[in-house]
């Protein structure tokens, strides 16, 4: 069943139809929030709030085939709110984090642990954390576009519509975002071999 049909059924009074929509979109929304916020707990909360809001506002959605972007729009707004709230909470300086990455990366094996599998798994895990940290360092408007494009697989036109900006602006944010990420990764002097080896 398509999203349109489920929305129709939900608006006609079938709650199960909405639950199907939730089950279909929970994972993408959760991952969007997770990459945006970098924290599973907050991402879970945002996901929950997103669907509660969607539940209440679904009757206002005019283009039903745009459910995906509409839902992401809700999630994005909630993520921004969450970020504002958090900015007041804590601030970790760059100096505190970067040396940690570097020392851990230079030390490519764990003491007493051998084998390429362990090493690789460790590198994969670190790579994820490093990428997440880098994502959180670029300006929010660039990060938003990078996540929507690269991780959520949206088209430039969809992102433009979601954010209410021109396609060219989306592309230039993407361009600056990728370049900024690259600069950060270079600054951290990440061992290219460690992270590029299985590209």
């Amino acid at each position, binding site marked *: 069943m398509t999203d349109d049909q489920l929305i129709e059924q939900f608006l006609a009074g079938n709650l199960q139809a909405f639950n199907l929509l939730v089950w279909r979109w929970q994972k993408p929304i959760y991952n969007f929030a997770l990459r945006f916020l970098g924290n599973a707990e907050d991402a879970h909360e945002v996901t929950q709030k997103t669907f509660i809001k969607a539940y209440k506002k679904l009757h206002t959605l005019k283009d039903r085939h745009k459910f995906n972007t509409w839902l992401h729009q809700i999630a994005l707004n909630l993520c921004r709110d969450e970020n504002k709230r958090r900015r007041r909470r804590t601030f970790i300086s760059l100096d505190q984090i970067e040396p940690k990455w570097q020392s851990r990366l230079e030390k490519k094996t764990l003491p007493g642990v051998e084998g390429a599998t362990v090493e690789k798994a460790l590198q994969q895990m670190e790579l994820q954390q490093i990428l997440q940290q880098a994502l959180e360092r670029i300006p929010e408007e660039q990060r938003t576009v990078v996540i929507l494009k690269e991780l959520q697989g949206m088209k430039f036109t969809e992102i433009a519509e979601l954010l209410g900006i021109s396609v060219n602006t989306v592309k230039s944010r993407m361009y600056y975002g990728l370049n900024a990420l690259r600069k950060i990764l270079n600054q951290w002097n990440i061992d290219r071999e460690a*992270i590029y080896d299985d590209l």
Partner: protein
Amino acid sequence: MTCEQARSRFMDFLYEEIDAATRQSLEAHLQTCSECRQEWEGLRETRALLQKLPQLEPESRLAFTAPPRRSLAEWWRDARNLLPQSGWARAAFGTVAALLMAIVAASIVNLHIIYDHGRFEMRAHLFQSPAPVPTPELQEQLLTRLRREMSDYIAEIHAAERAAQEEKLDRILTAFARDIERLEQQRENDLMLIGQELDAIHRVTHLQFGETNQMLQQLVQQISFQER
């Protein structure tokens, strides 16, 4: 194509939202301009890195229910009814126990049964005993049969209880769906998130098999004790 024009096309090229003609002239520029080529390679590598970020599974599934006319306590009572009913398990357990008796009677004692994550495993050790013991072949046959029949039973119980749970959950959801128009007046807190309840059901199912396992072990220990 100038460098500036080339850069303005990088994103289209990177995400393959580009027409063939533009692509060709961009590729031609990259062939001749090392500065743009270097930047292009950097963008490509960064993109490849980003693609390594996995899509993670959320910890629990969300589900909406509308419990307007019921109290929370009533809802919980319904939810608890979703937990495995003992009738099925008891019947199967009886048969399994009888089978075990037969094995014990064949003087196999100290039997260990392990049920772990849907896999069923059984180990038996023979006591050094003056009593006549079955031949190793017979023991093996008996064990094989027991193992097979028990895992069949466990699978059956599992399937039946899961079906019963799903049906019941479905009924509850449908019942709640009927009251949907009242939901708007509900506070946000009243939107129950069933995900955790589903997890609980899952845990209890496992727990119950764990208990069955424990009971079987106790039974075996008792019997072997009496024999000695």
